[in-house]
């Protein structure tokens, strides 16, 4: 098969020698992704900081003596006001000018201290606005925090042994509450995201270059010089498809590498908190599958480019395919049921499923083999179709 390596080499040279191309294919998408993710996490964490820094504004109706102290124990910076006009206080909550409104019954202290079995239990009402971040935070801290502390304090005045009232507690001292296989959990998380990213990356990385490699060459009139040379049509096709595979592979490796390296930056301090370790069998399975996916995607892109006269036309053919692949990727991301047997027969969809399965260690060898086989066979069939199309003078427009 002489000619394949020359054509492969030429296509790679074209890309790797051109600084502008290296930048736009390999670096720009990574920079954009890291930039956006960093910005998003920065904005959300600074929004959190802002909420923390804010002094809650609390209005209290009929506040019993000493209640302020309890609020100050959970939120020492909060500003407390007495309600003068009930309606305007409510209005302030609605507008976001105040964060929390607490309403005590008028003779709350007497009701509590003079309580006898059978009396009406006094009720404290709190009002807040869930669409305001400050208000929600104040509700969390004060309504569920401070009031509970206050209740305990009042209770202890009434009962000597508080513990006798508890009956039981739930998880008050149990740091090992969460039981999960860290590896499987990491796999689940990544298994959900990875097939999706891989599809985007492998396809997107090959799209621009692939259309230029074939439709662009037709448009520029440079394809014909290869067609009058004694290389087989199939060698031309394979040379180009392999070059495209390499380029999309390199770009996705850079992309994934950057994602891992910049994960802390992008996710803020917390991170995912999940670690993933792959064993060598998983790595081998992943590598073989990813290579075969890159092969299939490259063949698809070249196929559509062959039938286009210009790069523009080719892009408009390839775009819907890209959309379809994105949708299939998303579908696997949100499927929780165990996949049906036949889904491993559906090209492209099965690769997402299997990628997921390898990471969660749930894929069987049978399914893996089926997916790999179908992907490679379909890729080879497409290469055959492309080579046939190369024979056609109508398609090549020469």
């Amino acid at each position, binding site marked *: 098969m*002489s*000619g394949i390596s*020359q*054509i492969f080499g*030429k296509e790679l*040279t*074209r890309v790797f020698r*051109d600084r502008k191309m290296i930048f736009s294919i390999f670096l720009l998408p990574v920079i954009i992704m890291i930039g956006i993710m960093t910005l998003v996490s920065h904005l959300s964490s600074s929004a959190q900081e802002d909420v923390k820094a804010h002094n809650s504004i609390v209005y209290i109706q009929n506040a019993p003596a000493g209640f302020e102290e309890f609020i100050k124990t959970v939120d020492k910076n909060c500003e407390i006001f007495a309600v003068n006009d009930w309606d305007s206080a409510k209005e302030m909550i609605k507008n976001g000018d105040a964060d929390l409104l607490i309403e005590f019954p008028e003779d709350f202290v007497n009701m509590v201290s003079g309580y006898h079995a059978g009396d009406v239990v006094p009720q404290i009402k709190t009002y807040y606005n869930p669409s305001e971040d400050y208000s929600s935070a104040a509700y969390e801290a004060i309504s569920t925090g401070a009031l509970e502390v206050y209740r305990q304090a009042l209770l202890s005045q009434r009962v000597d042994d508080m513990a006798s009232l508890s009956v039981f507690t739930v998880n008050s001292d149990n740091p090992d509450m969460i039981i999960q296989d860290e590896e499987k959990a990491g796999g689940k998380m990544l298994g959900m995201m990875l097939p999706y990213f891989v599809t985007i990356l492998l396809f997107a990385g090959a799209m621009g270059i692939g259309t230029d490699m074939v439709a662009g*060459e037709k448009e*520029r*009139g*440079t394809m*014909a*010089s*290869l*067609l*009058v*040379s*004694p*290389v*087989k049509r199939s060698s031309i096709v394979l040379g180009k498809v392999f070059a495209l595979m390499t380029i999309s592979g390199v770009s996705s490796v850079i992309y994934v590498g950057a994602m891992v390296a910049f994960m802390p930056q992008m996710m803020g301090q917390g991170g995912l908190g999940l670690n993933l370790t792959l064993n060598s069998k998983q790595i081998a399975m992943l590598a073989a599958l990813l290579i075969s996916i890159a092969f299939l995607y490259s063949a698809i892109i070249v196929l559509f480019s062959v039938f286009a006269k210009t790069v523009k036309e080719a892009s408009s053919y390839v775009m819907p395919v890209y959309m379809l692949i994105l949708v299939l990727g998303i579908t696997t991301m949100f499927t929780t049921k165990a996949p049906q047997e036949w889904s491993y027969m559906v090209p492209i969809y099965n690769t997402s499923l299997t990628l997921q399965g390898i990471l969660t260690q749930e894929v069987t060898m049978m399914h893996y083999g089926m997916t790999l086989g179908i992907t490679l066979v379909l890729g080879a069939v497409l290469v055959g179709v492309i080579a046939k199309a190369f024979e056609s*003078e*109508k398609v090549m427009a*020469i």
Partner: protein
Amino acid sequence: MIQIKGLTKIYKLNKKQMKESKTTNPMKTAVDDLSLTAKPGEIYGLLGPNGAGKTTTLRCISTIIKPTKGEIYVSGHEVQKEPEKVRGKIGFLTGDIKLDPQFSVDYMFNFFGRIHNIPEEKLKARKEELFSYFEIKDFSHKKIKELSTGMAQKAAIAVCLVHDPEIVIFDEPTNGLDVVTARSVTDYLKKLKNEGKLVIISTHVMSEAEKICDRIGIIIDGSKVAEGNLEEILHETNTGDLEDAFFELYRNKKGGK
């Protein structure tokens, strides 16, 4: 040796092409039952007006397009049966086949040399010979897109001759070249002929055909109306120069309709 036997090429026109050529007939016969033989050691010229079918004929010989009817043998290989063998024997140059604009002349020369499986040593020697003959050395490191029309044409000629083909097919070889460059190209074609190669060119320039072609085939509307060396054609048409002969044949063909 090139033998064309009863070549017919019919293009199927799409709607846009039909509109452009103001016809409702979707079939366009570009070459109509054409036969000819060209032998090693001669320059054969296809002479004809615009749209006569010259380029179409040369493309059929070069396996770029397929004949609708008829057979073409190139060094004994039939173009439809053994296209790869034919491609190995020929060097084909036409205005609409271009070299990759992002690459240097050097790179393209080496690339096609390797495509043709030429050993490195021989490739070096070929490069030395062709680059110095066409005075390419000064700009061989430049990208094709930075070259002038003439420079690019010279580069294209050198690249298409990299494998020292025994048959050279040039579609309008001097098109767009100044007289100096045009002369160096036609001189090189003569040199090839003297080395025993077969050169077949197309042209609509009478003086070029007169000066360099050993035999001329005149094509009008896809069919051959005369063939032979200059003397034979002038004798046959009873005229004094090729232009008069051409018009005589043109009138006969068009008037006969």
